Every structure is written in C-alpha cells, then in structure tokens.
C-alpha cells in the first residue's frame, strides 16, 4: 500500500517535471535556433547547464524554493520537481534546436511563399516538425528523471534531511534498513510504471511520429488512440495556443517586454555570479576539501572514460542491427527507456557481493555504465536509423564485407551520431558518478574515492559543495569544448551523408 502511494507521488513529480521540461525545451530551443544574434550565447549556456551535475542544482533549488515558501511543504515539492526537471529538459532543448536548424528549406520557403504569419508557421510547421525529436528524446528524459529520483526526493539542508513521500525515499529507507525485498519491490514498481508508460503512451507515439518525417515513403502510420486522447486533453486545456504564445514570446525577444525581462534576468544572474565569486573568495577556505579535488577528479575521470568506451562498444552491435530497420530501433527505444530508468544503486549490493570490497575500484565502472550506456545506445541508434540505404546496398553490390565494411563504410557513416552518443554518455557517466560512488546499504556504507563521493561528503559545507560542483562542471565543459565539439564538427563535415 505504501508503495502504491509512493508510486503515485513519484509519477506525478516526474510527469510534472516532464511537462515543464517540454515547455522549456521547446521555447528555449526555438528561441536559440531562430535568433542568430542570441544563438551562440544561448547554446553555451545550455552546454554549461547540461554539464552541471544534478546535485549541483541542489543549493539553488533548496535556497530558492524553500526560502520562497518559508519551509512549507510546497517549497520542497517544487524543489524536487525542479531537480527532476534539471535531469530532463536540456536534452529536449538541444533536440528542438537541432530540428529547427535542420528543418528542410522547402518547408521554410513554403511558409514564406504562402504568407504564413509567424504564429501560424510555428503552430502548423515548426511544432509538428519537432514531434519525432521530442518523442525520441522524451525516452531519455523520462528514464533520466526516474534514474535520479532518489537524489531529487531527499533534500538535505545542512545536517537536516527532508524526505518527500515517493519511490525514491521509500527505496532509500529500505536500503538503509537493509531490506532487500523492499528495494527489489520498489525497483520493480519503477520498472512497471515505466513499462506501462511506454506501452500505453510512448510506443504508440514513436510509431506515430514517423508521420512527421520529411521525405518519408511508404504507408502512413496509424493514428493511435493515445494521440486523440492527448490532443483532446491539450485542446481542452488550451495547451496548444498557450504553447504557441510562449514560443512566439521566445521568438520575439526583441519586443520591449521580452528585452526587459531578458536584461533583468541577465543582470540578476550576473549579480548572483559576482556575489558567488566574492563569497567563494572570502575565507574561511575549505582547504580539506580543496586539496582533494584534483586527485578525485582524475580518478573519476579515468572511470568515466572507461565507461564511455565500454558503452560505445556494447551499444555498437545493437546499433548495427537498427540500421534501416525502424522496427529494431523502436524496440531499442522502448528497452532503453524502461531499463534506463532503473537507479544505479540497485546494482551495488550484487556487485559488492560479486567482486568483494577489494575490487570495488574496477567494478564501480559497471555502475557508471548504468548512467552512460543508455545515452550511447539512444543517440547512436537514432543516427543509424537515418542512414541512407544506398550506402549499405552499394557495399553489398561491390562485395565489401567483414572488417573492411566496418572500417571504411559503417563506422565512418555513423561517426557523427557515434560521437554524439559518446558525448552524452560522457555527461551521463559524470552524473552517475555522484549516485554511484557513495551508497548506504543497511548499516554499511559503500564508498569509493572520487569526485562523486567527495561531493556527497561535502554537502554539509555549502562552500565546499559549490567548489566541487564548479570544478567538475569546468572540467566537463572544457573537455566538451576542446575535444567533443571540434571532433563532432570535423566528423559531421567529412562524413556528411546528404549529397
């Protein structure tokens, strides 16, 4: 019974956060893609936000929402929803941005040639064109929200814990009691909810989303009931017109009010940032934590790199199977969204039992995989699905087989999505390091050294916490900018498949 209410609470939180993520992702993505002057800065901000580990949003969420509601339950509730939101929204915003950037020129010219007003074009062209990306990226987002449930439902304020009713809290309680059945039951509930959501909502949506692909051939997919239900619901709540208005506001950033809001927000952010720097620079310095940061970063980075490489290699055979087979890709999508929602913690006890405490170092990489593998799989299979059939056909005609096929055709052809997969796996592994390096199970605490466990152990000291988060974010952003982005740019140019 307790599980049912907990499940209800968690589901409502994840879904509420998901709605917010959708709205945010669409508005932000459109605004970034349609304004060349704000594009660069908005993308950079998104890049940094995506790299901040979810626990890094803790201080913000807690101080802001809890203070706003003076410690009332609603404040914690909003803080939890906000934290789940931070694990879902960036990925949707990126997807929306990319869709608009790659929108077929024909559709843009069509709306100009037949004098569509901007609002009309957004409602009838831009929003529908986003459907495939949004549906696909929602899989990752939903899985991610559940994956970080525990981190979001237990809000620590200094040495006080506020535990919101929900599956995350329930699972944590079972874990600290050492109640294995309880843990398994809560994990089972999470899987059950996700499987149901997939079966009833997302799987039909994924099939239906095929309709929105440009230049597709063959029979049109069926119109599933769930779309009718959702669109009736949306129309009843006037979501479509509200969304159009929201997007139009993001679009017309030049309007006076929007400019005022934008300037106010940036000024406030700048003040907050300066204040943060000043506060960080005033003594006392948390030297004990500071000296640990470099070594902890290096050790976690090594694990993360290993996890990324393993993720890509394990995902590869699945990806190869999904080339040109929409069916397989859809199955991978469903599997990844259900299994990707399983929190990392569950794997701790069996791995400890299997490996023994001495070998934890090595086996902790397995834990990071739970946070990185699904990302690699999602993004790589998404890219492989779009591979032109003429390429594989050509290989067949000329008898290019075996190692040569992989080396000279397949890997280069899927290199851009492969890099995207590795990049997102890299971010996911870092995020997972926080929940994976420190777990309390029964009376025993499992901990391995690294930036994640350092972060968890310094939650009591907010200055130390922010410094750790900043160091981690800086490293992730630096590697993204110096390594992943340039590599992706080069690969995308060299292995561009559109003639």
């Amino acid at each position, binding site marked *: 019974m307790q599980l049912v209410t907990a499940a209800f609470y968690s589901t409502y939180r994840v879904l509420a956060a998901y709605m917010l993520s959708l709205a945010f992702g669409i508005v932000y993505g459109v605004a970034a893609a349609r304004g060349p002057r704000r594009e660069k800065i908005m993308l950079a901000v998104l890049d940094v936000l995506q790299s901040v580990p979810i626990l890094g949003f803790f201080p913000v969420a807690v101080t802001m929402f809890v203070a706003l509601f003076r410690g009332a339950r609603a404040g914690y509730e909003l803080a939890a929803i906000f934290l789940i939101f931070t694990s879902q929204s960036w990925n949707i915003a990126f997807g929306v941005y990319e869709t608009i950037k790659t929108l077929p020129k024909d*559709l843009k010219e069509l709306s100009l*040639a037949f004098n569509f*007003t901007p609002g009309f074009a957004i409602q*009838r062209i831009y929003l529908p064109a986003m459907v495939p990306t949004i549906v696909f990226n929602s899989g990752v987002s939903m899985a991610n929200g559940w994956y970080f449930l525990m981190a979001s439902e237990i809000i620590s304020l200094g040495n006080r814990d506020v535990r919101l009713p929900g599956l995350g809290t329930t699972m944590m309680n079972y874990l600290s009691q050492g109640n294995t059945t309880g843990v398994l039951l809560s994990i089972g509930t999470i899987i059950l909810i996700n499987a149901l959501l997939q079966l009833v909502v997302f799987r039909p949506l994924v099939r239906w989303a095929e309709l929105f692909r440009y230049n597709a051939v063959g029979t049109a997919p069926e119109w599933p009931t769930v779309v009718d239900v959702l669109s009736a619901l949306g129309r009843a709540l006037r979501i479509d017109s509200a969304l159009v208005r929201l997007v139009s506001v993001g679009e017309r950033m030049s309007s006076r009010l929007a400019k005022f809001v934008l300037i106010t927000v940036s000024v406030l952010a700048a003040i907050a940032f300066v204040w943060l720097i000043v506060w960080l620079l005033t003594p006392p310095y948390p030297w004990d934590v500071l000296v640990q940061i470099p070594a902890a970063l290096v050790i976690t980075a090594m694990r993360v790199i290993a996890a990324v490489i393993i993720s890509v290699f394990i995902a590869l055979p699945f990806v190869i199977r999904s080339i040109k087979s929409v069916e397989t890709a859809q199955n991978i999508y469903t599997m990844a969204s259900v299994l990707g929602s399983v929190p990392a913690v569950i794997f701790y006890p069996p791995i400890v039992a299997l490996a023994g405490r001495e070998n934890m170092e090595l086996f902790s990489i397995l834990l990071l995989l739970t946070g990185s593998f699904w990302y690699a799989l999602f993004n790589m299979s998404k890219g492989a699905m779009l591979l032109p059939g003429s390429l594989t056909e050509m290989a067949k005609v000329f008898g290019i087989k075996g190692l040569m096929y992989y080396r000279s055709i397949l890997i280069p052809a899927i290199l851009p999505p492969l890099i995207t997969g590795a990049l997102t796996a890299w971010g996911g592994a870092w995020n997972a390091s926080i929940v994976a390096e420190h777990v309390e199970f029964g009376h025993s605490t499992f901990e391995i050294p690294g930036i994640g466990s350092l972060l968890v152990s310094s939650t009591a000291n907010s200055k130390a916490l922010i410094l750790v988060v900043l160091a981690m974010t800086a490293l992730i952003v630096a590697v993204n900018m110096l390594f992943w982005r340039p590599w992706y740019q080069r690969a995308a140019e060299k292995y561009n498949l559109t003639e």
Partner: protein
Amino acid sequence: MALFELRNVNLTFEENRKKLSVLEDISLTVDEGEFLCIVGPSGSGKSTILRILSGILGNYSGEVLYKGQPNPRPNPNVSMVFQNFALIPWLTVQENIEIVLEAREVPPRQRVRTALKYIDLVGLDSFEDAYPRELSGGMKQRVGIARALAVEPEVLLMDEPFSALDILTAADLREQMVDLWMSGKLPLKSVLMVTHNMEEAVFLADRIVVLSARPARIIGEVKVPLPRPRDYRDKAFEEILDHVYSMVLSGRLKKSR
C-alpha cells in the same frame, strides 16, 4: 500591361566570406496574359528571380514593381509551385491545400469547397485523405499545383516543376498544364516558369528569356508564336528550339573566352 517589372536587379550572396554574384543587371517584364519561361543552366540564378518576385528574398538592389507599385513582401497575388513539391508530410492531400487557405483566413466551409474543387481539377479525386508519402512523384506535384492554384493567384510562379519527375509523367503533367492554362477556368493572369529544359520551355511558353550561367545575365529573348497544343516534331517547333539552343550555347562560349 506589365504585371511584374524588374529594373536592373542585382544580387550577391556572401559565402565563406567571399562575395558571390548571383544576378547581374536583370531587367525583364512579365506581361498580363502570357506564359513566360526563364531558361538557363542549372545553378544559375533562375530560382532566385522567383524568390524575389514572391517576396521571399529581399536583399537585392534595383527595382521590382508589381502593377507599377513596389513589390509587396510577401506578395499575396502570387503563388508558387516547388521543384521538390514542398508538401507537409503530416498533412493529407486535402489538408495540405486547406492549410494555405487557412493562412489567408478563408472560412472553414469555403476552404473545404475550394480544396476539393482544385483536387478535382488536377485529377486527384479519391486521394483527398492520402498522405504525401503514399503518392507517386507525379501525384505529389499535382497536389503542389492544386495548392498553388487554390489561393487563386494572379501570377503563378513555377520553379522547375517537372524536373523531379520521370519523362512520361512530366510530359503528361505538361500537357495538362497547357489544358488548364488554355481552359480559361482559372483566374490566373500569367505564369512564370523557370526551367533548364529548353524543349519544355518551347512547348509551354509564349516567350522565353535565356539566362547565362552564374552570375545570371540575360542573353536574349525568343518569342514562341505557335498555336497550342504544340507538337515536338513540328518543323516550326524545332526551329525555335534550335534558336534557343544556340542562344544558350553562345552564352557558354562567351563565358569560356
């Protein structure tokens, strides 16, 4: 009377920080009641001229007049047929036509009536509820033509409308285009079509303007005073075609010198 008048229109694009001249000193008119073809090699600025007339592009220098007034952007009196159809994949045939009527605030009932009328006119009845992906290329372009006609424009702009189709389908559609144009059923005053296919131009046009390769300059003009429907094997047809051919070739030779 001239519907459209271009006076010394120039256009340069900037690509990789290099200035690229696309149109050079283009002056031409589209007269009322004529079917005008602009012929030129692929990659010349032919399609760009259509985009200027429809108001999609505005960064040109020179003058563009519609009925003696500066060309409005966008120009609601023109309509466009696209080379690659530009149908919206998530809308049915009928919805694809209705959406452009909706954008012009035609009331719902009349939208349906008009859409069905033009679907009928291009011979697509019973395909109202099909999605573009379920249609052949020729049928897709019929939808594109029906959509362009449904807003009842004064000038129809066609951007290589038959070049993405196979030869037989293209010939078939061309003949139907002539029938539609001759029938007088349309409120259409003029058609401006852009093509690289010289035979097609002689088959359809009253007048042909020949452009050079990039940057596009006007090489010359050929009148086609043949009665419709025209026959490709006709002696007069072949003579005019030869004339257009030699004009295009001379443009090439001047270039290589």
